[in-house]
Structures are given as C-alpha cells and as structure tokens.
C-alpha cells in the first residue's frame, strides 16, 4: 500500500489512537505512540481515545478494531490496525517520509 503525500507538512499532523482499556496490546500501542511522536521531528500529535470511556467516539469514527491508529484528516481517512510497533512502517503508511527520503512533502 503506497502512501500519499501529506498536504499540510507545515502544520502538526494529528492522529488518533483508539484503544480499549488497559490491555497488553493497548500498552504496546501506547509505547509505540511515544516512539512515533519522537521519531518524526516534523511534529505528530497522537491523541489517545480510550473507547471504553468514550464509546460514542468509536461510534462516530466507525471503529471496529483496536488498536487502531487513524488519520481522519486524510482523504480518504487512513487506518492502521493492530501492531504499530514498526515506526518506519507506520510513518510510511501515513505519508511521513524520512527527511532524506528524497520525497518532497509540499
């Protein structure tokens, strides 16, 4: 699955991480989240949505699976389900290329 270029490289990207309570997979996802935010110097903010506390958020976003990392601003929205520990893969999927990748994000 190839990535699209981000249209707003200047602004902080906002992703959402949907988890369901305190489970091993949720904990792993939360650790990955920190790594991803650190890795991408361009600035990514990843909001955590615990659907057990906010089921209506899962309903409005149409979330079926957890963990789901979601970019609702992309058209169409992009979702990565399951294991998000491979930071490079995650960044690539959401269209954040490494600075030396040769891609221009503008």
């Amino acid at each position: 699955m190839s990535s699209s270029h981000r249209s707003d490289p200047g602004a902080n990207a906002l992703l959402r991480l949907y988890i369901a309570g305190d489970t091993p997979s949720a904990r792993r996802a939360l650790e990955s989240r920190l790594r991803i935010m650190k890795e991408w110097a361009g600035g990514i903010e990843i909001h955590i949505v615990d659907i057990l506390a906010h089921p209506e958020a899962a309903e409005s976003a149409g979330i079926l699976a957890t963990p789901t990392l979601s970019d609702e601003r992309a058209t169409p929205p992009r979702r990565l389900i399951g294991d998000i520990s491979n930071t490079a893969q995650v960044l690539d999927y959401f269209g954040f290329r490494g600075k030396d990748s040769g891609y221009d994000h503008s």
Partner: protein
Amino acid sequence: MTTAEEILIDPVLERVRTGIEAFDDLVMGGLPRGRTTIVGGTPGSGKTVFATQFLAHGITVLGEPGVFVTFEESPAEIEVNMASFGWTIRRWREANKLVFVDASPRDHDQMIIGNFDLAGLLTRVLHAARNSAAKRIVLDSVTQLFDRFVAEQTSVRRELLRIATALKKQGLTVLMTAERNSEYGEISRHRIEEFVADNVVILRNALYRERRRRTIEVLKMRGSRHVEGEVPITLVEKQGIVAVPLSSLRLEQQSSTKRVTSGISELDSMCSGGFFRDSVTLVSGATGTGKTLLVTNFLAGGVVSGERALLVGYEESRGQLFRNARGWGVDFEAMEADGRLKVICIYPEAQNLPDHLLMIRELVQEFKPDRIAIDSLSALERIAPDSGFREFLISLTSFIKEHEIAGLCTATDKSLVGGQSASEQHISTFTDAIILLRYIQEGNFMHRGIMVLKMRGSEHDKQIRRFTVDGAGMHLGQPFNGAPDIFGESAASRREE
C-alpha cells in the same frame, strides 16, 4: 417429544417472539432468550427483513428495545428499504427504542498488521444496548464482517465468539444473519454457525419451475425442540415475512353436526340432509360434467338461505362465471350488489401458492363468508411444486374448517370418462366429502351421472344418479340401472367387447 422432556427443557428457555406467528410455533414460542441464533440465506432470501421484523415486534408489541448492527447497508438505507413493510424506523430511533450501530463500509484506507481485537465493535454494541435498554440485538450480516478482514479469518472467528459470549452474559437475545452461496449447500460462508450459534435458521428463495419459492427452516435449536422441515413463507407489504402455517400441526378436529344446503335439494337428500357446516367437499369430474354448475348452485343456495358466500375462481373470468350463472337462473350481480356474494377471479400464475393461500385467508377474514367455493384446485396445482401443493391443501382445508365455513372445491379429471385426477389423489384424504361427476354411456346415449363417493360422519346415497341441466340448473333423475364403472371405462362399452 415426551411430556417429561417438555417439563425438563422448556421452562429453562424463555421464548422471545419474533412476530412471525407460524415461525414462532415451529420453535415452540419463539427464539430462546439470551441465546444466539444464526439466520442464514442467499442474497435476496429475506434475512434483513427477518432481522428487522424481529426487532420491530419487540419494539412495537412487547416493549423490548433493540440494537441493529449493520455491516452492509447504512441505517438510512435500511430505513428506506424496510418502510414498505410498515416499519417506522425513524420514529423508533427518535424514541430511542431502536439504536443503530453503523458498521457499514466507510470510505477509508485500511491496513492490518499483526494482532487486533474487535473491542471497538463490542464496545459500540454494548453502549447502544445500555443506552436503549435493549433486549434484542441484530448483527446483519456477520459475513460482511468477515469480508472486511479477509486475511484475518481466525481473528474474526475468535472475536465474534467473544462478542456473542459478552452479549449472552448481558442476557441479550442475539440474531446474526449470515450469507449462503447456494440454497442447499453449506450452511453459511465461513461456517459461522459452527462456532457461534446456539440455533440455526435457514431462509430459502429457491427457483422451482421458473418460479420463486420462499421457505424457512429451523435447522438446529440447542437444548430445545423444534418442528422440522421447510415451511413456505411470503413477503407481504405492511407486514413483513408471513409464514404459511401448517395448520395440521394443531388441527382441532370438528365437528359441527349442523347441516347446510348444497343448493340442490336432491343432492341434499343424497347426503342425508346437506353438507356439514365446517366441512370441505370435493367435486371431481371431467370438463363439462357440471362442476361449475354445482359451484353456482352451492353459492346461490347459501345466499338464498341468508348466508354470505365467497367464490375464488382460477379458471374462468368474472364475465364467464356471471354469464354461466345467468344461464342457470342465478343472478350473481344482484347477490354481489346485496353484499351477500363476493367473486374473485385470478390467474393461478399471478402469484405463488403461499400468496394464494394468504389471499384466501385475507378474503375470509375481511368478508367473513359462511361458505366458500374454490374453482378449481387443478388449476392451482399447475403452478405448485409437488410437496408445496400438499402443504397448501392441508393449510387450506384446515383453515376453512377452523373458521367453520362450508367449503366446496373442484378438481378436473384429465380423461373424459372416469379416471382420477392427480389433485383428486392429493385432496381426497383432506376433504370430508367427495362428489363425482361422470359421463356415463348407455347404449347410444351419453348421460351425466352424479354420486356421493364419501361423506365423513354421515350416511349417504350410494347410487349413481342421472342428472340433466336446463335454464333452472341441475335436476337429478333416476339411478342408473346397469353397473357403470365410474372409475374406468363405461360399463356399457365394456359389455360390448
């Protein structure tokens, strides 16, 4: 099926009525509460209708709110598609009696890496159920859920089981629809029924002789009894699915001893005083022997003695029937104008057999006739699948008897002299009386003869009587002297050989 089993099993499982009456009868009152039922069917077999009806009945009749989890159509589409059945989904949603969990496909890119769970789905369903105090949950269809995670079948199976278990723990009655590839192949794609369902119901929409035949079958009911076999169903506007009941299952035997006139006084005396009030009589004969005349007399005789009469005609048009009647001195027009007679003519091919049955039932409930004539059953048999016709007859005859209506049905013999029609073989066991009309040769003359072959619960004349027809109808004459064989060749012709 023993009483002991009944006592052991039935109290454990409280029943949730689906609102499809004859189906609820098949499963001893409804789906077991707090269990999961799979409703499988090919596309177009009525799964979503069944599921919606299950929720609708809970909401409108029993005060049980429901949750509709849709994986395929959007809630708006379901609202529109189900409107023709008279279900006001929008109003239920506004009153919070029905809550949708919209899991229909949305436009987004998705990638799956490694393990995941469907906690998102479960959380949404439980949230919706809590908010509406739901008792009934529909997931339509879980096959779509599998298709959404094509490469992750094992995970979806595990998660679906987890969801079913969690909903069961809440005491919720769950109905999952599942798609099938063929009418008589595997039960469902992904074999969902094997790991998740307590009960399995199959909806079919099979092609038979270029016609659709819809049925419902209960395949499995864990820990309880059910009636086996396919039952015809039909989709009815403003109602939804209507299963055509096999009334024979709970046939309450007659019997009224009250007699009503056949419309011909001589025939009444042959039957020791007329037909029984709640009985079905079969008139069988070749074409031109006078079946429709007997029908006309039967109807007119009822109307004259103050009854209401209904005629359902499958062979002739209203115009023909009215003209015939006039020729025999009976004025159908005046009778209809008085509201004492109703004549409905319809081509057998116009609808399916179950629909014909429903139409008759509705006519009876509307018009409340004291007697009904059906002319002819042979015409209906043309469009019937073999087993379907028998079911139809059982249902029809027991319906007529339950309503204490005097029924007269005709059947056409294929051969002109004697012989049995196929419908005759089918019908004879379900009818209470059989009257034969036959061509009988005597010398160089061809006469018409009438005889009462069978009359349940009564004495009857065993002779074969001549009859003639004129502008005043049927006139019975003397018995035949010889011994004509009414089942085969005429006696006279055999003697000559």
